[in-house]
């Protein structure tokens, strides 16, 4: 084990996968010599060669189209989209192309691409550089979405995404690049489609997505001090969802709180709540709570942005509200 930051664990995963398989390459805006806007790809071009790591025009249309074409013809490309907000530009290629080609071919062909992108607020970058775009894609069958929380999961899931035969959008939370944790020195992957129980507890199930896992863990610590024993589940793969792990937990704790950074309305929280209502209603002893952003664009001013983003106090209050009424 070595202690790595999230940034380092992604960098290592990329280097190892590009090294391991000659069909893998990494491209995008500024990912080469400069090392990427967030310096995630720092040193990779020098290490692996400019034929495996290279810069592109500022054209997400080209990135979205070419990554599909390369994946359909024997390559296993990784493309970096600088901000998740810009996924709107490649939405056509993700929704209508990448996600649907396995369905549209009769011979088992799929589209083994990885789109790496950043998401989330907290930097006062304003309404077009701070969004959590996951809900835009959550009803697109054929697309996979991965949003890890720990360095271990970042590395293992990115490696799994590169090896996966289906198209994967890999979400990196901007606020968590410096988070550190233990990462094995040997090669490993974390399976796509498998949730992880980040903390065991008996009184409440908290499902938290991506950057919100740390927030939920912090809240769980505070709640523990007040005598509430929370279980924190990290789906890790947002689509397709490991519902079974979540429902098993709800049946045990009899409570459910969901935390994500995108707006509450139309978000994954509603889906998870509906699944619980469908499959575990009679196990629930408390109202289902969602802790998420309000239904407004991500605001710029510091106090507005902080109020927009869910935090540990919000989670704590929601859990107490659910349990105490």
């Amino acid at each position, binding site marked *: 084990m070595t202690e790595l930051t999230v940034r380092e664990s992604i960098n290592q995963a990329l280097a190892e996968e590009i090294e391991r398989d*000659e*069909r893998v*390459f990494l491209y995008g805006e500024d990912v080469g010599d400069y090392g990427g806007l967030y310096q995630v790809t720092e040193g990779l071009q020098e290490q692996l060669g400019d*034929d495996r790591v290279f810069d*592109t*025009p500022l*054209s997400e*249309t*080209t990135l*979205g*189209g*070419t*990554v*599909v*074409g*390369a*994946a*359909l*013809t*024997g*390559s296993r*490309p990784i493309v970096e989209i600088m901000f998740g907000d810009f996924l709107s530009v490649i939405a*056509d*290629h993700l929704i*209508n*192309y990448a996600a*649907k*080609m*396995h*369905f*549209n*071919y*009769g*011979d*088992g*062909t*799929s589209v083994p691409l990885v789109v790496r992108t950043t998401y989330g607020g907290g930097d006062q970058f304003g309404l077009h550089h701070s969004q959590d775009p996951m809900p835009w894609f959550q009803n697109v*069958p*054929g697309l*996979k979405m991965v949003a890890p929380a720990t360095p271990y999961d970042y590395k293992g899931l990115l490696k799994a995404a590169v090896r*996966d*035969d*289906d198209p994967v959008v890999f979400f990196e939370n901007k606020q968590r690049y410096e988070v550190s944790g233990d990462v094995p020195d040997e090669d490993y992957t974390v399976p*796509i*489609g*498998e949730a992880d129980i980040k903390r065991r507890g008996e009184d409440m199930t908290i499902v938290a997505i991506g950057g919100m896992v740390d927030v939920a863990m912090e809240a769980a610590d505070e709640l523990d001090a007040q005598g509430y024993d929370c279980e924190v589940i990290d789906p890790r*793969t947002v*689509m*397709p*969802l*490991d*519902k*079974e792990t979540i429902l098993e937990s709800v049946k045990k704790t009899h409570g459910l709180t969901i935390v994500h950074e995108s707006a509450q309305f139309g978000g994954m929280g509603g889906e998870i709540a509906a*699944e619980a209502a469908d499959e575990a209603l009679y196990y629930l002893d408390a109202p289902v709570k969602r802790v998420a952003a309000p239904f407004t664009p991500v605001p710029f001013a510091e106090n507005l942005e902080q109020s927009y983003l869910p935090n540990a106090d919000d989670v704590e209050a929601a859990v107490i509200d659910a349990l105490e009424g």
Partner: protein
Amino acid sequence: MARDSEREEVHEYLLLNRIFEEKVLEEYEDSGIPELPHLSIGQEAVGVGGTFAFEADDWLAPSLRTRAVMLMRLSLRDVVTGMYGTKSSPTEGRTTQHHLGSSENHILGTTGLIGSHLNVAVGAGLSARQLDEDRVTGVFFGDGAATRGEFHTAINYAAVEDLPVVFILENNQWIEETPAMDVIAVEENISEMAGHDIPKEVIDGQDVDVVLESVSGAVERARSGEGPTLIEAKTYRYRPHAEVIPERRDEKEIEEWKERDPVHLHEERILDDGLVDEEWIEAKRAEITEEVNSAFEFAKNDPMPAEDVMYQVYKDTEIDENGGVVR
């Protein structure tokens, strides 16, 4: 000019395209076909000559109207059952034949979004470079597609990276019901829109020999590392955009184009050159008609697919019908 045996083969493909689509029209009018026909009658020389110029393991991305790519790379049975969506169709009824992909036959799957395949084709070119493969990619698209940002971004990237891609613009003058030149801000040739530094050719799309020669040259350049070419083939479709849409083009315009019919032009030439005689042509017509008819017979009697085939969503993860992972 192609070798004699190839010229015969090219003519067989022209006849196949024409006879097939006339049969589609007849069946559609008689008893209906589930897939709405978007016929290429009148502009077959571009698809046939264009496809013929590539090797079998080069990748081709057709436009929705490039029927030749499908007819020349798939079996007739696959094409026709594809239109009926029956059990034996390549995707067992999951998709129409229009946008079908086949890794085996090196057809890049496309989507119902006109022009979204342009950068995908460039990605296939990028892939060939990355994998050090000798493959060229050809992409067919219409004048309407050329008005999208896809067109400019695809050409820019292919050109700046010298990727082995051949862009074949099937300029049939009409974008559904809109005359192309009403919505395109160039004087004469749509390829002028691409100011990029790549070779451009404007050619007679009615003459299959011209198409074959032009595309072959572009394929050769691409294969030898000289990068992409944009070929604009001027052509025309005799039928409306799709069979549900009423014809509103000028009858005179259609008749003028029919005077330079691509099948007829080539037929005259190979007869004049003494390559084949009338009997050969009659025999080929009869043979192809028979094959086409029997493919339709097969499709019309083929059972419908089982419902479970529509859950082909992920290759690597099993899910239930509401998207939950099956563990």
